[in-house]
């Protein structure tokens, strides 16, 4: 139980920081809405709804990337990561707490972005919402770990998209499939599989990313 308590404490710390500073959430929100507007002008007149659904997933992945680039910024700026790794808690709890916080941010953004998408482009059905939630788990699990790797490098924000996008391709395949395919359950199952496989891998390997 102490493990879950550690995770909850760490996640709460990130949420509180964000509520006080309000750095990331407004930026992500503005970004996703601006992206929709750009897409409106990028889509040729008379483009079908399926194309718009695909663009929704592009917007979500890039918005998540924006948030992930800032995920470890508070720790890095104050040198707190060393302190956290010395704390008497399992190191994977640091990853899980951060992932949970990023998940909350991303879901909060999508609570606005999906209705906005429905108003601008095409209606959002239940399987899209399911796909978005499942993809969020994968994005947060993998993205948080990769962001920790990127934070250790000199290039930081520059390298994160290069690391993240190849790993996000299966998520986009699953998400777009869930949105437009007749066989949405197959794609949702695939997203679930991705989440399970990569969450376990990230959980097991985070310790090595932060330790010397």
């Amino acid at each position, binding site marked *: 139980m102490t493990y879950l308590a550690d995770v909850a404490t760490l996640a709460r710390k990130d949420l509180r920081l964000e509520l006080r500073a309000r750095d990331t959430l407004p930026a992500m929100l503005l970004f996703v809405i601006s992206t929709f507007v750009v897409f409106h002008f990028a889509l040729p007149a008379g483009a079908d709804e399926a194309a718009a659904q695909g663009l929704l997933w592009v917007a979500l992945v890039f918005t998540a990337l924006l948030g992930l680039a800032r995920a470890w910024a508070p720790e890095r700026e104050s040198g707190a990561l060393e302190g956290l790794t010395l704390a008497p808690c399992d190191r994977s709890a640091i990853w899980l707490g951060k992932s949970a916080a990023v998940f909350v941010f991303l879901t909060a953004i999508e609570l606005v972005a999906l209705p906005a998408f429905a108003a601008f482009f095409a209606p959002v059905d239940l399987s899209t919402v399911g796909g978005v939630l499942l993809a969020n788990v994968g994005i947060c699990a993998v993205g948080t770990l990769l962001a920790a790797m990127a934070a250790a490098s000199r290039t930081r924000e520059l390298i994160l998209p290069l690391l993240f996008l190849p790993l996000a391709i299966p998520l986009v395949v699953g998400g777009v499939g869930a949105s437009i395919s007749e066989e949405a359950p197959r*794609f949702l199952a*695939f997203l679930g599989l991705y989440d399970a496989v990569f969450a376990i891998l990230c959980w097991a390997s985070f310790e090595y990313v932060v330790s010397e």
Partner: protein
Amino acid sequence: MAPEDADQGLAQKIFYFHVPIALTAYACFGWGAYKALLLLWRKEERYDLESYVAVHQGTIFGALTLATGSIWAKASWGHWWLWSENQLVLFLVLFLFYSAYFMLRFSIEEGPRRANISAVYALFGIVLVPVSFLAIRLAENVIHPTVFTLDGPQMTGTMFFTFCVAWIAVTALAYALYRVELLGKRLDSNLRELREALTT
């Protein structure tokens, strides 16, 4: 001598390069991930270099797979690139993924942290292979010629023999390159240590 393919003619010959190179690239990535696992497990420094060299070779062979596959696609189907070709798309994803490996590796200061992070990333790669394959399979309709099915290879005896010879040759080439690069890199690092010892 292997007979000409009834359907594709001479263009089919590239099969004896393309497929062994692709299989060798997978083997290199797998070898790199295995060494990465050993590094995380046993914390021995030498595995870091071995894993890096294997991934490096894998990326070179991956680029060759893209090139030969593209030539074959042009000869067979008349297009340099087909998104409906599962394996080629998979190699493109892997190529992008492993290219980022080098950018990541060279932007972290040398040391145990870099070794660990590179190893974790190499492990991600080997998990990404089946997941991406499944994703690409799900995403499109299948027109890639499937030569190896569950019923065994769909080709004649001499063709299969030629293929095996080519496969062994490419694997041996990859192994030789792996040893040479490893030797060079080790020499390089020993030399640097020696130089540091002499200057202090």
